[in-house]
């Protein structure tokens, strides 16, 4: 459990939004879309681990 994870995800989001603006200004909308997709996948990796941790904790607490 570390709170830094939230700041990491927020930083990633702000970084991707800035790069997106640059790419759209350079008329590269497809690559901006790809960048957003990659960012979502990276965050999804973390989210899946957290969901797994929550399910394991609930299972151990309530005795499934």
């Amino acid at each position: 459990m570390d709170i830094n994870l939230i700041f990491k995800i927020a930083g990633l989001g702000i970084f991707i939004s800035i790069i997106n603006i640059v790419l759209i200004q350079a008329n590269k909308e497809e690559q901006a879309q790809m960048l957003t997709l990659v960012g979502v996948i990276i965050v999804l990796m973390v989210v899946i681990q957290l969901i797994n941790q929550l399910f394991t904790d609930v299972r151990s607490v309530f005795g499934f």
Partner: protein
Amino acid sequence: MIVFKIVGLAIISSILIIIIKQKIPEIAFLLSLVTGLFILILIISQVGEVVRLIKKLVEKAGIDIMYFNTIMKIVGIAYIGEFGAEITRDAGENALATKIEMAVKIIILFLAIPIMISLIETIIELIPRF
């Protein structure tokens, strides 16, 4: 104190979500999901303490432990189901959220059948036969 941790975490992450939401709503949604997961994981240890206390009381009172286990399972299913329904509703999928809630209700009903049957048997024993 865990309450300061949770409230501070929620306020900071909602500010960050407002900043990110204008440009990339997908990552803003994931950030809110992660914050919710953090809060639930932080609070589950306290829930465990409460469950342990109730279990001790149940053992002292001499009630059948099977009923306690079933009730705790139902509480866990409601915990997970409510979380999933809220997340899907947050993502704008109201239909999915309603279906999750329906599935959780059916699972709870299924788990409650043994308790219901034992209750009905007790009532039938109480009725005098003519």
